[in-house]
């Protein structure tokens, strides 16, 4: 059992949970993920770390309420427990020796981008962060990013309610055109990562994307998370989650992410039946 230290709502869509898991926190690195199971009938769901403390023995992640597991998560409070937390899993993100880096965080992808950008800064890379959200209310972790020694923080919203109005690919393209970037790390919805990779490809700027395929065990045993990269099948859990964005088959990734959409609704409806909330 893994006790919850805090669970708070960050925006209309995002929640942040902090959980006691000393063995996992001890070895966690930026870009890695863990798997949790809420309760005895819970699904195994992967989340990438947004933060952790090896000294204090906790891990933190940010989630949106999209299905049964995340619905259950929203109802938990400090002092409640998660049935299972296992990790850290996956290969850590590269940091250091990358030169001028643009880290793009879209939606809750900003949560994953935060420790990656922090690690890059600490490793001597020059980091520009581009955060994207539909509107100001959905923007997360702005203060945390501002506290990092970034070269620049660029905020983009679809409606212009915070930062500039437009997509994250606009400033990214401008950086490429100005030859102001050596390496790009894009983390967010598959469609955003796809367009980031398409933007940088014509400039030949190496672009890494952090993928979030469906997983079960998370240790290479089931192959649910397979993605096609450069024509080869890779397992997101043990070969990733980071891959060369110019080689990823995003159409396949998006199709595979949708396989259980109907089932997820059914499972969520089942959770609703036993639940008094009106989220």
């Amino acid at each position, binding site marked *: 059992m893994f006790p919850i230290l805090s669970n708070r709502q960050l925006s209309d869509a995002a929640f942040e949970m902090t959980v006691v898991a000393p*063995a996992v926190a001890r070895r966690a690195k930026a870009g890695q993920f863990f798997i949790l199971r809420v309760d005895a009938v819970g699904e195994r769901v992967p989340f990438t770390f947004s933060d952790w403390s090896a000294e204090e023995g906790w891990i933190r992640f940010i989630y949106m309420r999209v299905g049964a597991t995340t619905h259950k998560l929203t109802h938990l409070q400090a002092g409640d427990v998660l049935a299972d937390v296992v990790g850290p*899993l996956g290969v850590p993100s590269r940091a250091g020796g990358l030169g001028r880096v643009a880290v793009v965080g879209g939606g809750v992808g900003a949560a994953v981008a935060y420790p990656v950008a922090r690690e890059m800064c600490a490793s001597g890379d020059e980091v520009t962060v581009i955060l994207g959200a539909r509107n100001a209310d959905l923007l997360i972790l702005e203060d945390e990013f501002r506290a990092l020694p970034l070269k620049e923080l660029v905020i983009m919203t679809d409606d212009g309610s915070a930062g500039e109005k437009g997509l994250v690919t606009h400033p990214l393209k401008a950086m490429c055109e100005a030859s102001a970037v050596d390496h790009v790390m894009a983390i967010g919805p598959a469609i955003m990562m796809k367009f980031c990779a398409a933007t940088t490809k014509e400039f030949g700027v190496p672009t890494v994307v952090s993928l979030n395929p469906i997983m*079960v065990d998370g*240790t290479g045993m089931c192959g649910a998370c397979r993605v*096609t990269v450069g024509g080869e099948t890779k397992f997101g859990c043990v070969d990733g989650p980071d891959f060369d964005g110019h080689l990823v088959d995003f159409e396949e990734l998006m199709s595979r992410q949708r*396989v*259980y959409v109907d089932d997820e609704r059914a499972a969520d409806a089942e959770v609703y039946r036993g639940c008094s909330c009106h989220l």
Partner: protein
Amino acid sequence: MLVPPVDETAGQDAPEPKPRHKASRAPRTPMPEREPMQRVRSFAEVNLGYSVEEAHAEAARCLQCANPTCIDGCPVNIDIKSFIGAIIEGDTKRGVEALKARNALPAVCGRVCPQEEQCEAVCVLARKGEPVAIGRLERYLGDSDLACDLESRCRPAVGAPTGKRVAVVGSGPAGLACAGELAMLGHEVVVYESLHEPGGVLVYGIPEFRLPKEIVSAEIEMLMELGVEIVTDVVIGATYTVDELLREEGFDCAFIGAGAGLPVFMGIPGENLNGVYSANEFLTRVNLMRAYEFPKSDTPVWRGRKVAVVGGGNVAMDAARTALRLGAEEVFLVYRRTAHEMPARREEVHHGEQEGVEFKMLCAPLEIRGRDGFVTSIVATRMELGEPDASGRRAPVCVLDSDFEIECDTVIMAVGTRANPLVAKAAKGLDLDRRGYIVADENGQTSKRRVFAGGDIVTGAATVILAMGAGKKTARAIDARLSGRG
């Protein structure tokens, strides 16, 4: 009923003190099982197990040979003669003790061991027709033991504490057998399991209808009674390394029994379409995650109407029969050789046939086709058998221009596994073979002195009992090392 002695080896040794057992010449006692049409929509166990009368009738067939060959046929050398002798005498308790002296998981092995290739294959009666149903009798005793409450169950003697600590990586058959043996020898054992439930393939792989999960958990419960500690949710190679366990956590030795790992895909077009599963994923969703209870359990599984299973082993049979139970209208097995070469147990093939699994033999998949990201059909070619290959089986060869397409909405790949790359991260300097499996000698000794390994992670995918045999044997080598004898 007077029976002339047929025991060919009888009388070679000193005479037994007891009056000689007169073997019954009745035919092999069939295993009672659920009706095919009743069981095919249910996950309840197919084989029901012998009643007391059936067990006695079957045990009575045993010749109680003076030099029993069956014991050598068992990878863990269970004293089969003694446990059957005990059933003959109606002493179930002594039978259970004889059995558990060599096998910590009898109710599991009685169900899933391929006895027909092991102990029963070398039974003297096999030469004369039907061998004694050793596996069914093993299960009978294992189940009798589990039917008692925990306090009155047979408890193997545990040696005096040695003060030595051993870490076991993986709680599948190899790890559990190793842990049980080490605990009985008085060592402190901690088993690390990466999933949320212990049992490994017994829990995620073998379906409920063949091996009920409560049997597995009851056997594991007894191991914990012997002092074995099991820690779930720890991935060795991720959460801890073996080196850390030895250096920082105070273990004297480690045993790696991490299993075979990564599922193999064929590399044919369309394999990443929605509706294509590895057998590992399909079975894990259903068994470990209980997707058959969805949406009461949160994990979904794609419930196909027409399901193609590629492969011919026990895992393929498990996947096919599981698909039927999830409500598939049609399930067919695509196998590139013939029934004769199928590695699956005959009993499993027979049960599959009864339940309506269709067998498309001499067929090899070429491509999986789909629409809007989902599987719609599988394209295969006809094969014929040519010259024997390295495995001794006749190698299948394509028949030119014989491609055909079969409509289906699910494809399950059960074509084997390979080594998990996490193993290489488990311990620095561990020698791996070119396929990524751990190199270990016959005592499980790896290239690192305090690290031992056994089971599928050394041999590649094999059987539950072979993994258990390796775990047990290695436990003795570890014991020798810890007590300064090795």
